[in-house]
């Protein structure tokens, strides 16, 4: 059965690491949905959050293949029920028509987003949430005329004291 999996990996924060990781995705044929990466809690380390669509076996293999990479310090699958998963999206919509503009403002309110930029022709919305929430917002507003969408990909942490980290 195909499912979505969220994997957190602590990696060395240095040039070439993203290449090695993405190379492995290609080489082993993983169907990657998103990769989010940024500095982690310790210096010289970054955290990657990877989401894939696949079967149980794919998730096991992905974690194993990540751990096999020398630059990956630790990798683990996160249980979506026990993790905080968030994505940030910036969505620029056509908003010249006052009726549409008011609809956008209404939806943004419902989705607890923010209008971060407005021009006479457009409005840019910031939405934070799960992938599904952002997908839903985009689907709702698609008919207004989507100008541009920029999404970070999901990033995630385990809830509570448990963590994917190593001690110094």
């Amino acid at each position, binding site marked *: 059965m195909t499912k979505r999996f969220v994997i957190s990996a602590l990696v060395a924060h240095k040039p070439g690491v993203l290449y*090695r990781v993405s190379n492995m995705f290609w080489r082993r044929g993983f169907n990657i949905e998103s990769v989010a990466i940024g500095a982690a809690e310790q210096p010289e380390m970054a955290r990657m959050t990877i989401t894939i669509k696949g079967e149980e076996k794919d998730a096991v293999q992905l974690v194993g293949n990540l*751990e096999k990479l020398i630059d990956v310090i630790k990798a683990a699958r996160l249980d979506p029920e026990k993790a905080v998963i968030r994505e940030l999206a910036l969505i620029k919509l056509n908003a010249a028509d006052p009726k549409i503009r008011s609809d956008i403002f209404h939806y943004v309110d419902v989705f607890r987003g923010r209008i971060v930029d407005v021009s006479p022709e457009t409005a840019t919305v910031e939405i934070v949430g799960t992938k599904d929430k952002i997908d839903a917002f985009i689907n709702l507003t698609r008919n207004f005329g989507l100008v541009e969408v920029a999404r970070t990909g999901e990033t995630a942490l385990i809830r509570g004291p448990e963590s994917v980290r190593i001690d110094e």
Partner: protein
Amino acid sequence: MVKMSGAKTLIESLERERVETIFGLPGGAIMPVYDALLDSKIRHVLVRHEQSAAHMADGYARAGGTGVCMATSGPGATNLVTGLDTAHLDSSPIVAVTGQVSIPQIGLDAFQEADIIGISGPITKYSFQPRKVQDIPATVKMAFHIASTGRPGPVLIDVPKDVQVDTAEVDFPSKVEIKGYQTVFAPDRSQIEKAAKMLAEAERPFILAGGGTTLSNASNELQKIAELLLAPVATSLMGKGSFPEDHPLSMGTLGMHGSREANQLIYEADVLLAVGCRFSDRTTGKLDEFCSTSHVIHIDIDATEIGKNLCIDLAIVSDARTALNALYRSLTKLLKTRKATQWSRKIKEVKDTFANKIENSGKELTPPKILKELRKLLPAQAIVTTEVGQNQMWASLYFKALRPRTFITSGGFGCMGYGFPASIGAKVARPDVPVIDIAGDGSFIMTENSLATSVLEKIPVTVLILNNRMLGMVAQWQRLFYNRRYSAVKLGDVPDFVKLAEAYGAEGLRVGSLSELSDTIKRSLKSEVTTVIDVPIDPEENVLPMVPSGYSLKEVIG
């Protein structure tokens, strides 16, 4: 702290790893290192093509140790690539050093610039590009550590030319730490006990030993378990030699060109113990039908091999030796000795049946006869390498390997041109034993210029060419599966291998009968110079038995 150049630092770091030999070929971007090499005790073996340098390092590694090869930037580095992937697929520990253009020129498409870090990414275990002289000692230390521990593999160190030339105060660490890199995998106790129980209760246990058995030096442990369980042992091509093939429990190799007994009996097993193998398509045949009715226990040091190809029942993530040791201890608690069972009688019966079936065509110089003759003439510790193609599969089927690390072949990558340079590397590692390359003409030609290296560096080996003047394995497939439509397989009568050998200062001999072959091999084993023995064989000869690609191992032809 001492002040020295990057090149000198590199050489000293290699010396500290106890490197005795480097196989390589210089060029512009590695000249400072070659200059520093002149002041070192390390022996440099000059190749005529960098691919051979990588294969020599690989052959050296498989005979025991970590092999080192070196090349310049750009084409020098890319010529290593085929050898790196060969080592990668067979988990062979080699360290490759390449020159690189100076740092300010990287990315500018400078002369002889190649992104070897990018190119080698998927085919090495890791690759480094030290950007400061001070980084070199730890880099070299890490490279050897990574190459030789865990699941071994090739590591590349790409050194920009300005880093070779720069000088700095350097410090040589005695230890390095690589965060998150695990080298020791203690087998899970409860899994070991479960495995012992499954095996002790099995009526028809069967063991499949792969290359990991050889890499972790687990042959003794393997043999003890096989003898305790009275379980037949087949090996993958990479595992060949990990279990003595003259042992009554030896089934030879399994797979596309496996022995009849292995391919038949594995389907009758109720529990399969697979050790350090990865269930490659050439070993398992059609995967859906492979061991579909038996329980499978899989021991491997690489967790990603568990369940990658085959769904298994019990996994033990550990190096083969540690796991087999623990398993043996657990087994002895459950079993003292085992008396001959119906299964052991069956094994003997099947083995005997097929032993008598061995080709008895009227021809004198058939590959099975040649290889059996070769076995008779060689001591058990002699090392055999093979080229790739029919010669390799004949060797796998008909040359019995008696000790680990005495059968060296490009298994996973199937790299033509491998055997001859690998034999030179193996001979450097083990000058005390005879080394023979079982060759085909097509494969030997690919790296035949290593004759120069072999002769001038006084590294004598024997090359036994099973010469059918064909790309024989492709021709065989065309005969069997393409209605005998030969496409691009005929190599013709050139070169004359006797003259070719002589042109390089090696000995070249052609033989036409088994007794001549025997005399010639004996002579070559005493020779101080490399001998090329050209044995013309029938170009129509097929390697049999064979399981066609994509079929179950039960569907043997021939």
